């Protein structure tokens, strides 16, 4: 490799790139075999490789590419049509060329393999199917080479698209030369020869083609090692800048302050710039996928359409490298296991061709990648059975799992549901490796699957690993950095709240964050520091996201946010899960970076068992703190509301006012052959009765010890089932307390008290 000529090396780099392009072109061409531009581009690539290796005397490579070129020229001239066989053969050719290039790179020669079978195949496929007619579609008017000649002016574009004639264009140009200040497009529009829209389109076309042309001129190749070094240096510069800014606070010299400000700005810009040099569109990885999907689909006898969206989404190069293999694996899985064969698809009422969609986009400082297929989805029953069979979980656990949880089992190490091992997937190293690799770069992966409808994998990864914003907190007197990607919010409890805000469930501290219980983890405890200061002062809670769980990290103090440069910790710390690395802060001190996932794991926040236990405890606590009640809501007077437990209500009756009689100074009605005493609740509560002239009364019948009494109320509003927490408990005037029901303050009636006040005889034992 050392004695390899620079020229050869350049040839290799260029050829590799060209081959990637070839893969894409060939797969695209199979879909639209008539596209001459692609055909000639493929032809040119192979031609270039052939020419160059003749120059370097790589004779075997030359002979292989030669046959390929022959076939391509026939295809280009329309004497052959491109079918699946020929595409496969050409793709094989690309592979062969790639293999030979690799050999050249390592050994300096193109190897001993002559690829005779491939050459024979290609030669054989060149036999035209005894074409009786010399290809009617052969377009003599458009020589292939011309398709790449790029137009330079709007006029040319317009003429080419047939919008104006060359003569009209010449007239316009003449007018311009005679001093007309208008532009060509404007002149043509003015003369009514073309529409404004056409000119606009032409301008767009022109700009595109110019951009394509200039790309080659404004790009240079840079060694990645150099970029890495630059990145490191910028990292150091950022640290030095941070340190200088700290000095700045004590300086009074305006010139010095100005200079440091400038240094600050320039450093920030430089940092962004260097980061950008390492950014690459995710399309660089995705470009391999059409070919992979095609090969897989052919191998599995399936038909798959691959849709790529958001190719231009940019990511740090190291991250791109890191996700290459996981993504490939996911795609393999999707085609092999997910998407069904055409007949199965048709039988289940889907279209013949399966769709595999990959979508990438930026969101919240992270890159999201979604891979979804419209295949069969994860068979959760089979997953459960497989996991039990392999001893990964117990039968009991499997039965208690939700389908969503069961689908996540595919991420367990040593898991594979493939019934037979194909050469594509099912070797037992699978999704667990994918998950580990994604987590290694600080990403997360989530799987959602609808049986029969398909599977969606969502991956979230950070944009870059080198410099990240972080929150600085204090624990045990030391500073620690928490990467901001996992940060959700900060909560500070002061005074009274600091004493009462944290509740214990079975010894586990929790905090009610907007009504939901947030498990709390004490950083001091996790780091084995001394117990935190007495909880009388403020409590600082950093709400963090780990996997799909949230938890609150209680720290002594929240200091600041800072851009930090992540430096790895030495090997001797690798078994401490709570640290992700270290950094040097503005004051020159070293601070450890907390690994949010690691803390969550070591504190048991994200173990499933504990989670379930917590959920159960939560239910219990709900029960004891505010039992659910069914209440009868009543309207009293103008707009007062009252409620009585439905359990105390025997019946609801409407009684005509005229039926009311009097007995022993008490209003009564005849009710089911008995005398029912009536109590006007509004009188007892001392509120104005509603409508006196109503013809009927609403009566709530209350029965106790075989005796009944009717409570006359103004209105019956509703029956509600609600948690109830009496907020005022003042047992007087027939009210036990008040609560908020349906967003209204509602009096809870003391039924027995009311009856006792109005009809004391009711509770006396039945006489005689």
């Amino acid at each position: 490799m050392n004695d390899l000529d620079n020229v050869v090396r350049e040839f290799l780099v260029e050829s590799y790139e060209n081959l990637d392009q070839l893969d894409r072109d060939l797969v695209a061409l199979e879909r639209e075999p008539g596209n001459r531009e692609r055909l000639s581009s493929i032809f040119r690539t192979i031609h270039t490789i052939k020419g160059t290796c003749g120059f370097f005397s790589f004779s075997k490579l030359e002979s292989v590419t030669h046959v390929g070129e022959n076939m391509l020229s026939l295809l280009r001239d329309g004497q052959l049509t491109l079918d699946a066989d020929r595409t496969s053969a050409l793709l094989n050719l690309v592979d062969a060329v790639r293999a030979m290039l690799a050999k050249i790179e390592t050994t300096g020669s193109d190897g001993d393999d002559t690829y005779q079978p491939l050459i024979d195949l290609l030669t054989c496929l060149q036999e035209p199917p005894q074409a009786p007619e010399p290809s009617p579609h052969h377009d003599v008017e458009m020589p292939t080479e011309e398709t790449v000649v790029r137009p330079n002016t709007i006029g040319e574009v317009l003429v080419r698209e047939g919008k104006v004639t060359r003569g009209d264009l010449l007239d316009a140009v003449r007018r311009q030369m005679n001093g007309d200040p208008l532009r060509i497009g404007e002149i043509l529009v003015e003369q009514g020869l073309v529409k404004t829209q056409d000119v606009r389109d032409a301008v767009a076309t022109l700009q595109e083609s110019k951009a394509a042309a200039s790309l080659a001129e404004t790009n240079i190749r840079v060694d990645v090692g150099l970029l890495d070094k630059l990145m490191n240096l910028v990292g150091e510069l950022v640290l030095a800048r941070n340190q200088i800014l700290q000095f700045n606070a004590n300086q009074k010299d305006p010139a010095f302050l100005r200079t440091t400000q400038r240094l600050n700005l320039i450093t920030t810009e430089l940092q962004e710039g260097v980061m950008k040099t390492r950014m690459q569109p995710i399309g660089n990885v995705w470009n391999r996928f059409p070919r992979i999907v095609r090969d897989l689909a052919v191998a599995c006898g399936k038909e798959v359409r691959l849709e790529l969206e958001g190719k231009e989404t940019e990511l740090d190069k190291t991250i791109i490298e890191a996700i290459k293999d996981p993504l490939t694996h996911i795609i393999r899985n999707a085609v092999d296991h997910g998407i069904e064969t055409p007949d199965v698809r048709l039988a289940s009422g889907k279209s013949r061709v399966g769709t595999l969609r990959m979508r990438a986009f930026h969101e919240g400082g992270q890159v999201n990648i979604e891979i979804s297929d419209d295949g069969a989805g994860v068979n959760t029953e089979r997953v459960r059975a497989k996991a039990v069979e392999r001893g990964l979980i117990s039968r009991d656990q499997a039965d208690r799992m939700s389908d969503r949880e069961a689908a996540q089992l595919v991420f367990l190490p040593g898991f594979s549901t493939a019934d037979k091992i194909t050469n594509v997937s099912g070797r037992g190293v699978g999704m667990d490796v994918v998950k580990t690799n994604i987590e290694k770069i600080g990403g997360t992966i989530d799987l959602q699957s609808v049986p029969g409808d398909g599977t969606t994998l969502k991956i979230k990864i950070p944009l870059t690993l080198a410099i990240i914003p972080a929150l600085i907190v204090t624990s045990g007197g030391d500073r620690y950095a928490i990467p901001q990607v996992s940060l959700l919010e900060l909560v500070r409890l002061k005074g009274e709240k600091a004493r009462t805000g944290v509740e214990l469930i079975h010894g586990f501290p929790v905090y009610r964050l907007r009504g939901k219980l947030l498990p709390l983890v004490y950083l001091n405890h996790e780091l084995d520091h001394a117990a935190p200061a007495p909880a009388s002062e403020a409590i600082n809670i950093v709400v963090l996201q780990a996997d799909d769980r949230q938890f609150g990290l209680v720290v002594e103090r929240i200091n600041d946010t800072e851009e930090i440069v992540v430096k790895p910790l030495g090997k001797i710390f690798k078994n401490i899960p709570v640290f992700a690395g270290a950094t040097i802060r503005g004051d020159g001190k070293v601070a450890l970076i907390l690994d949010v996932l690691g803390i969550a794991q070591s504190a048991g926040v994200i173990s499933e068992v504990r989670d379930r236990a917590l959920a159960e405890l939560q239910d219990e606590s709900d029960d004891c703190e505010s039992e659910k009640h069914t209440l009868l809501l009543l309207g009293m007077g103008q707009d007062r509301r009252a409620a009585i437990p439905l359990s105390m209500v025997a019946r609801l009756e409407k009684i005509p006012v005229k039926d009311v009689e009097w007995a022993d100074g008490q209003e009564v009605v005849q009710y089911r052959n008995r005398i029912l005493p009536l109590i006007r609740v509004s009188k007892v509560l001392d509120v104005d009765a509603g409508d006196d002239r109503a013809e009927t009364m609403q009566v709530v019948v209350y029965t106790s010890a075989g005796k009944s009494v009717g409570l006359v109320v103004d209105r019956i509003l509703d029956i509600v089932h609600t948690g109830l927490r009496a907020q005022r408990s003042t047992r007087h005037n027939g009210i036990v307390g008040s609560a908020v029901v349906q967003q209204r303050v509602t009096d809870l009636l003391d039924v027995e008290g009311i009856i006792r006040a109005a009809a004391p005889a009711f509770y006396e034992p039945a006489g005689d």
Partner: protein
Amino acid sequence: MSSTTQYCTFHLDKLLFGVEVQKVQEVIRYQAMTRVPLASPVVQGLINLRGQIVTAIDLRRRFEFAPRPAGRLPMNIVIRTDDGPMSLLVDEIGDVLEMSHDAFERPPETLRGVARELIRGAYKLTDRLLLTLDTERAVQLHGETKTQS
């Protein structure tokens, strides 16, 4: 003169140790350190060495000696290892001595425990022994960390 080796010497408790000069990156005074919770107690902390983060190992703890008397600050000997530079905390720095291999002897069989693990041998000086430290082993901690209860 290929049969001599230069040693950077230092004092630890009552003993005189030596590290091959080629392995030593630099010798610096005591630095403020950031402790690493949960790590082995042998790890004293992390220091900022001109922008590089270096782990400091307390050799007294490593050798299971008595702790350094209060108020006495250790010195850093920064050595090169496969895992980047590491700092060894020692009591005091001595001279650089050029030792002849004739004066070297492997440790006697009676040496046991940590001493046997970390001491490669001894050079016999006129009045005392210069013990050579196996730096690779000195910075290897068998990955032992305090496990959380």
